[in-house]
């Protein structure tokens, strides 16, 4: 598995999560369109980015480091 943000446990691009974070996005746009595409938020750095981005803090989905819980798991989005 490549170390891209899209494969990181901190990355979340679930539309419902994004709608909750970006309140008001549905008024004139949506998180389901091509303009958003597959971009999501990094729950570790509070950034909004593409899954093709990279970062030194990459953590593979499903791997739990001592003292650090899975952000996606904390939001009920754990996938593996």
């Amino acid at each position, binding site marked *: 598995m490549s170390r891209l943000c899209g494969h990181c446990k901190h990355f979340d691009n679930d539309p419902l999560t994004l709608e909750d974070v970006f309140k008001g996005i549905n008024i*004139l*746009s*949506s998180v389901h369109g*091509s*303009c958003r595409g597959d971009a999501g938020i990094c729950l570790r750095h*509070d950034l*909004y980015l593409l899954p093709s*981005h990279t970062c030194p803090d990459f953590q593979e989905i499903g791997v739990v480091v001592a003292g650090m819980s899975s952000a996606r798991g904390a939001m009920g989005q754990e996938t593996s």
Partner: protein
Amino acid sequence: MIIGNIKKMPKWFHTAMRTEYYIKTGIVLLGATLPLTLIFEAGGIAFLQATIVSIGTWMTIFLAATRIFKLDRRFGAVLGTGGAVCGVSGSIAIGGAVRADKDHISIGIGVVSVWAIVMVFALAIVTKFMIPPPGVPVTDASPWYAITPGEAGAWVGTSEYADAAGFAVVAEIATQYGDAPIHTFTLMKVIGRDIWIGIWAFILAIISCTFWERDKSATVGARVIWDRFPKFVLGFFGACIIMSIIAGLAPEDHVGKTAVKGTFKSKAQKQTFDADFSDYQVPEQLAHKFAHDPEARVITFKGKMSLDELSLLTSNTTTSDQVWALKNLHYTSDWYESELYSRAISPIKTLRSWAFVFCFLCIGLSTRFKDLLTFGMKPFWAFTIGVIVNVPLGFTLSTVVFSNYWQAIK
């Protein structure tokens, strides 16, 4: 909007309350009613005007945000693209490409949405004041501020920040002045501005990782251009091409036919008639085209009747009922108007109107100022400076520099 701000809509209603789906459906349907030739004729001007305005507005907001208010460059890019390209969609497309702070995206959405909603009312009121009453042309004797509906649509397309909000303005103008403002708005906003969002995302992603972050490991592929491309525009072009092909398939042997008793209807006139053609003398030149069947009580005309031919036929009439019957025959002899328009284009326009009605309903019900007004004054003022540049620039380009092009579009 009042209901939406007083009472929060239930969760189960949110799926039906997605503005973007209705506006995209409306734009695709709009493609079916827009002649392809119009896009070829005015598309280049729309692109040129959009380029001038987009670059000017983006630079203004970006420089105001970063130089005057000392905001983060990526935040400036998010705000700038929201004002220059395609509103909230532009902000989220660029936000992902430049790796913006998620709070900056939220603020960008708030600022762009508030200004877009303000501009719905401001542009609708101002343009309706500037356009002369229906039927009154803009001449040298008109007030200095007088503009045509076509110019108004182009201006709205240049100075409104979101498709849905812009359509709210031009649909309002169109109720009195016909489809010209909708056509020029679509050319300007959808073809001129929206389709370049992928290019903006690609360029800003390169600038971000090369100059702002200096991240040597980051790579930006040209694929982002396609990924961010608003795909509904393909539906718009597809519908436009399909309908243009169908329009070109008009049968050469089409025979217009009308009963001698009926009702003539046009946009401006409605008249019932009961004509008697038993003594009617057909002009010799048109004897091979015009026919009267007294048993079936119908008159027919082979091929499309020109206005000269109509004039020739009416010159031999003896009653006004015959004139109205011939006018109706003139209409039915035009395959595009009597068959394609009435059976396909007109229902599509009705459907399109409903798509926009639901779109505006969704904007109203989903707008909660409490959720939007969470931004500080610095991003608001940076964006406002962009508005101050964008609106007069859009007005000048639409009504002075490229005025002839927008006036010509009906």
